[in-house]
């Protein structure tokens, strides 16, 4: 790594630099962990895109509290409903964030919470329907680190 001052300034936003070189001491989940969690959740079902939408900020001012929301398109009846939604943060020391379990009584498959992100990374959400079919959405959230946040 050989950055001179000009390059550092050119990069401007410190977070970009920090992300590029990685944060000392922060462990990152192995790719295998993410795959394993997904396989357990989907029980081997094929994953399609669509139906599930993850809302998350493009840039999080602080990784300690990042508001996110998931919604899944479904009529939410006894015959057809969203069973569960799993949220993973691929760049955290442990990828698991939360799993929401819905029921036909949910009326609407929507839930929001606030999560911790150790660094800039992808958030992955997988929705599992009552018939076992699975859908996926994914967003990258940039986490600003450093600066003068006292």
């Amino acid at each position: 790594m050989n950055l001179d001052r000009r390059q550092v300034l050119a990069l401007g936003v410190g977070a970009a630099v920090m992300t590029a070189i990685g944060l000392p001491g922060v462990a990152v989940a192995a790719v295998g962990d993410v795959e394993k969690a997904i396989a357990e959740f989907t029980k081997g079902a094929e994953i399609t895109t669509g139906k599930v939408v993850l809302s998350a900020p493009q840039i999080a001012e602080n990784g300690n509290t990042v508001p996110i929301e998931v919604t899944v398109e479904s009529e939410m009846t006894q015959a057809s409903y969203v069973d569960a939604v799993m949220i993973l943060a691929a760049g955290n020391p442990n990828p698991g964030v939360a799993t929401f379990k819905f029921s036909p009584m949910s009326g609407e498959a929507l839930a929001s919470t606030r999560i911790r992100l150790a660094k800039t990374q992808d958030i992955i959400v997988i929705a599992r329907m009552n018939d076992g079919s699975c859908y996926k959405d994914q967003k990258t959230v940039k986490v600003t680190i450093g600066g003068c946040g006292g």
Partner: protein
Amino acid sequence: MKFYLKSTLMALGVAGAFMATTSFVAADADDHKLFIDDVEILTDIAAPEGSPLDHLYSGWRFRSPETQDLQTDDFGNPGFAAITLAEELWDTAEGAKGKSCASCHNDVDEGMKGVSAAYPKWSDKLGKPHTLVTRVNECRTDRMEAKAWKWEAPEMLAMTALVGLQSRGMPVAVKSDGPMKSWMEKGKDIYYARVGQLNMSCANCHEQNFGNMIRADHLSQGQINGFPVYRLKWGGLGSTHRRFKGCMKNIRAKAFGVGSDEFIALEAYVASRGNGLAVETPAVRN
């Protein structure tokens, strides 16, 4: 290696932001309006006469839309978990006298309305200004004969937040004259004094460069109208003194102590720079 690189980059980033104008990213206060449960809280006003600033902006205006959102409903505002705790404490009798806050002050919303907007405030008894923290402790030790709470104790933060909430939307009105004058001067000296390895003063960031980015951070005017504030970084409420300490550490200065006369003077002076701004306690910041 990584540590070395990190600290070098940080030093360069901070110093660089002030040396090279090209590294400034103009990003003024936004034009968002703050409504909390549909009641508007004014987040900017024309500066009062004698202010070194032209216009006063609440720190809320410098935050990202997601952080701003967290303050727009009292349920979603995580600082309100502490309010729930403080409401219980308000009615809880403690100490040798068997009194609670409510024994003297009745309901908090009638007894404490507008109170915090005037703090820090001169105390003849102390011979120096009272902050809300020392005022709460005076009640505890003298009237309740209970143990004082520590400055950053969860109970103290919760109670000062609850008292502050009773002034929400009311203008900050800290007195600078009379016996407060010398403390204001002392606070002002601290505000403008360059300190630390980076040789910076409060004014360098919060008066001369608010609205600009310092690395990844959007600098505010450093107004304290929302304290105690829920900081995402802290994952909880914290006092002005804790925030001051963080700033001083960032400029590589030896920080004054929480509760020190220096920080009391600085708190009084910084509060007075926000005279007229609406109280936002408990605000949410990054």
